[in-house]
Every structure is written in structure tokens, then in C-alpha cells.
């Protein structure tokens, strides 16, 4: 049975696209058939992070508007089997996506036997973000440990509960998961950032994982590779945990505390 997952946040630049790419790649590596869709019409950067920007011929908007079929537009990932990308369009107007059109694409993907359909949401709480979450069965809310990001996530959670198809039809509500990204324990200790407990306390959504702030994420996105494939890095391991927990495994949370300072830094300060 297919599951539709929206990766959303309210605020921009918190790590939705990074998370979508790694989640999709991680699920595909486990053997599931996965499609990841970029809903950020106009910005289009999922294909850059996935490293397939030169292979985009037809995009999501073309399919919704009937100018191409799904088979033509789905880009097959070269590194991971069973992983497909549906890119956003860079030039079209933001109203190019419609609820019906999106619904049809999702139904077609389900009929094609995709196990997971990951929807990478644009920022905001308006139409684009609402379309991305409308058909979701599961929501991954991406938050940074700062007040404005948490506030925006709270708003998007309210919208998930009120404006999704599941809410409108009275079905079981969307299951919600929290991913806290760009977490920096040193800055939490110094009081510049919110602690993980404070965020979970306010949002009251089960924590799927904490992804540390990491240079590896920037390197990976510059290289056009989902960071989860850079297996040695902290960020990749954090995302692997996220995937395992999403699939129901119980795992202890990692990357929550600052690394102990070595003798050297003890003697010489920072």
C-alpha cells in the first residue's frame, strides 16, 4: 500500500529539501520504490540536490497540465535503484498546480506501484504548501531550534489538522513526525538555540530524529548527492536513524549533546 509523505515546515531554508532527498534515498536503499516530488514551483532545487538537474526534460507542471506523461517526466536516480524524481518547473507561474491535477499524479504513482511518494513542500502556509500537504498520509515537520521556525511549524501543524484531504473527509488524521535539523548542541548550551525538549514540548509531535548542523550537508548538496549517501558523516547517520524510526524501528536518539572537549582545549580555552 502506498504512503504519501509531505515534508513541510512553514519557514523556508530549514532543511525540507535536504530532508526530502535523504529520506527518499534512504527508503529506496531499503528496497522500497520511491518517488520524490518537488512542489516548489519557481524555485526548483530538489533536482540540484539530487544531482539530476541536467536530465530534466519534462517536469511536474508538464504532467499536471497534460503536456507529458508520468513515465516521460520521472527521472531515475543513477545511484540508488527504485528512486525516481519528479522535478519542479523553474519558469511557470505558481498557480500551475491544481488540486485535481496533483491528485491525478499521485493516483497514477500509486497505480504504478510506488511504496512511498515524498512531497517536498515549498515554504509558507499558503496555497503551494497546502497543495503539497493535501494528499498526505504522513507529515514530516522539519524545524530548526529557534523560536520563529518552531512557531511556523506549529502553524503548519494546525493546517495539517484542518485543511488536508484526511481532515476534510474525516478519515484518520495525518500522522505527524518531527525532524529537528541544523541542531548545534554547543549553541543550545550557550542559550542561543532552543533545546530539543523545549521544541518537542511545545509542538507535541513525536520526534523522528535530530540532524546536527554539519558541513557535510553543504558539501553533499554542492556535489548533487543526498547527504545520506555520505555514510560516514554525522548528518547521514542521523538521517539513516530517521529512516529506520520512520519504518518503525526503535532507536535511541543521537547527536543531542556537545562533544566533550579534549585535554588540549581544556588547557588552552576554546
Amino acid at each position, binding site marked *: 500500500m502506498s504512503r504519501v509523505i509531505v515534508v513541510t515546515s512553514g519557514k523556508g531554508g530549514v532543511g525540507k529539501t535536504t530532508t526530502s532527498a535523504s529520506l527518499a534515498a534512504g527508503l529506496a536503499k531499503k528496497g522500497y520504490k520511491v518517488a520524490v516530488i518537488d512542489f516548489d514551483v519557481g524555485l526548483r532545487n530538489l533536482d540540484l540536490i539530487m544531482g539530476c538537474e541536467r536530465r530534466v526534460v519534462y517536469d511536474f507542471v508538464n504532467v499536471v497540465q497534460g503536456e507529458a506523461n508520468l513515465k516521460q517526466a520521472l527521472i531515475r536516480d543513477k545511484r540508488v535503484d527504485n528512486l525516481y524524481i519528479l522535478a519542479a518547473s523553474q519558469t511557470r507561474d505558481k498557480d500551475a498546480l491544481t488540486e485535481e491535477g496533483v491528485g491525478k499524479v499521485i493516483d497514477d504513482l500509486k497505480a504504478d506501484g510506488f511504496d512511498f511518494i515524498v512531497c517536498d513542500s515549498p515554504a509558507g502556509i499558503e496555497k503551494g504548501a497546502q497543495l503539497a500537504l493535501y494528499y498526505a498520509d504522513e507529515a514530516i515537520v522539519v524545524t530548526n531550534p529557534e523560536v520563529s521556525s518552531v512557531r511556523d511549524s506549529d*502553524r503548519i501543524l494546525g493546517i495539517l489538522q484542518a485543511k488536508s484531504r484526511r481532515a476534510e473527509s474525516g478519515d484518520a488524521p495525518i500522522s505527524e513526525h518531527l525532524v529537528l535539523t541544523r541542531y548545534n548542541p554547543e549553541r543550545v548550551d550557550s542559550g542561543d538555540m532552543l533545546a530539543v525538549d523545549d521544541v518537542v514540548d511545545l509542538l507535541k509531535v513525536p520526534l523522528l530524529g535530530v540532524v546536527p548542523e554539519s558541513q557535510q550537508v553543504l558539501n553533499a548538496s554542492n556535489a548533487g548527492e543526498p547527504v545520506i549517501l555520505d555514510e560516514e558523516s554525522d548528518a547521514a547517520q542521523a538521517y539513516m536513524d530517521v529512516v529506520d524510526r520512520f519504518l518503525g524501528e526503535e532507536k535511541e536518539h543521537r547527536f543531542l549533546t556537545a562533544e566533550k572537549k579534549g585535554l588540549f582545549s581544556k588547557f588552552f580555552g576554546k
Partner: protein
Amino acid sequence: MSKIIDLKGSILSLTVLKLYDDRFEVTRDALEQKVAQAPDFFVGIPVVLEPQVALADATFLALLVEFLHQKRMIPIGVRTEDEQIKEQAEYAGLAIFPNTPDKPARPEKPRAASSEDEAGLKSALMIAGSVRSGQQVYAKDRDVVVMGSVNPGAEVVADGHVHVMGTVMGKVFAGSSGETGARIFANRLNPELVCIAGMYQLAEDIDDQFKNGFMEVRLENDKLVFNPDCLN
């Protein structure tokens, strides 16, 4: 330099007098009867007039204002979109309120919207989880019980009492139609605003000592009273 005045936006609860008849004498007699039933209740209350009919008699509002003053009520304005009534109101020295809906619009449906239907027992409106930023819950003619928290940027409004099992971090309004006996109860209160029957206090005006532990807020002599000991 000390402050001389302070002009702030305000949330007031006003009595609205709806007028269904354009004859002054008939209206006056009806009012006379009403006031006779509870003369003290009407002394000093601010009243907004809301004509539901055209007022052809150009002196209607002026006469009504005079009559209300005699009854020691304080007419302060008219709520209308009718140009001719606006003109009369200006002449009678009344403020003009635009005819906006009674309650602020609800931007998003609260989670427990389905329990808001009017059928059956009119007990408290139950909200299963937290009220989130951007959401507004309104319990008409009854209490509201929020099982979770009222998050920053959320609003909970009730004509009756407001009970919050978690923490109030947003805005809460009890007695929003003027019920001065309405109270607010919270497991913890660290709100953006609390308001009972139009009297409100902002976060910055609330003493920090009241922001920990169970709290009751009620109205006494037109003042909000914070009572941490209400359970003892």
C-alpha cells in the same frame, strides 16, 4: 518624564441596543418597560445602537439619546452602514461603528470543530489537543476545555469560562459577551493576553510570580485578579 496619557486599542464589551421599529414613541415605551424590570442594571452602561430599519424621522436618534441619558445609560455610538442614519448619528454626537460581524473571523478550523455542533447538551466545548499558532477557537454561550496548551499565536475565546489543562502561551478571552463572572483556569499561565468581559492584561503587565503553576484569573471590581491559591 511620566506619562500623561496613553491611547491604546481596546477590547470592550458593550451593550448593543437593536432597534426594530422606526417610531420613537413605540421604541421609548418598550425601553421604559425593559428598564423598569431591572432599573439598577442599566445605570451607567455604555450602549451602542443598532437600527435594523431605516429611520425616516430625522430626530429619532437625538430623541433616543436624550431618553437614554434620562435613564442614566450612556449611548456612545451607532453601528450602521446606512448613510442617512450616519448623518443623524453625527448630529446626535454619536460615534459610528462599521457594521463588521460580531465575532472575529475564524481563520482556521480548530481540531475539535465537529464538537461545536449545536445539537444535544450544551456542555463545554472540548478541544482534544493543543490550539496551535494561527488557530482560533470560539465557544459560543458555553465554556471551553482545552486538553493541551494554547500555543503562542493561538486564541481561545469563550462566552463562559476557559479551562486549559496545559500552558497558556497565546491569548485567552473568557466572558467574551460580557459575562463578568467568567474565569480563566490554567495549569500554567504565560500568556500573550488574558481578557475577561473586555478587561484585558498583556504579558508585559502580568507579574512574573503569576507565571508558574496553576492559576485562576477572575474579575473583581473591574480588575483582573490572579489567584494562584484557588485550589487551597
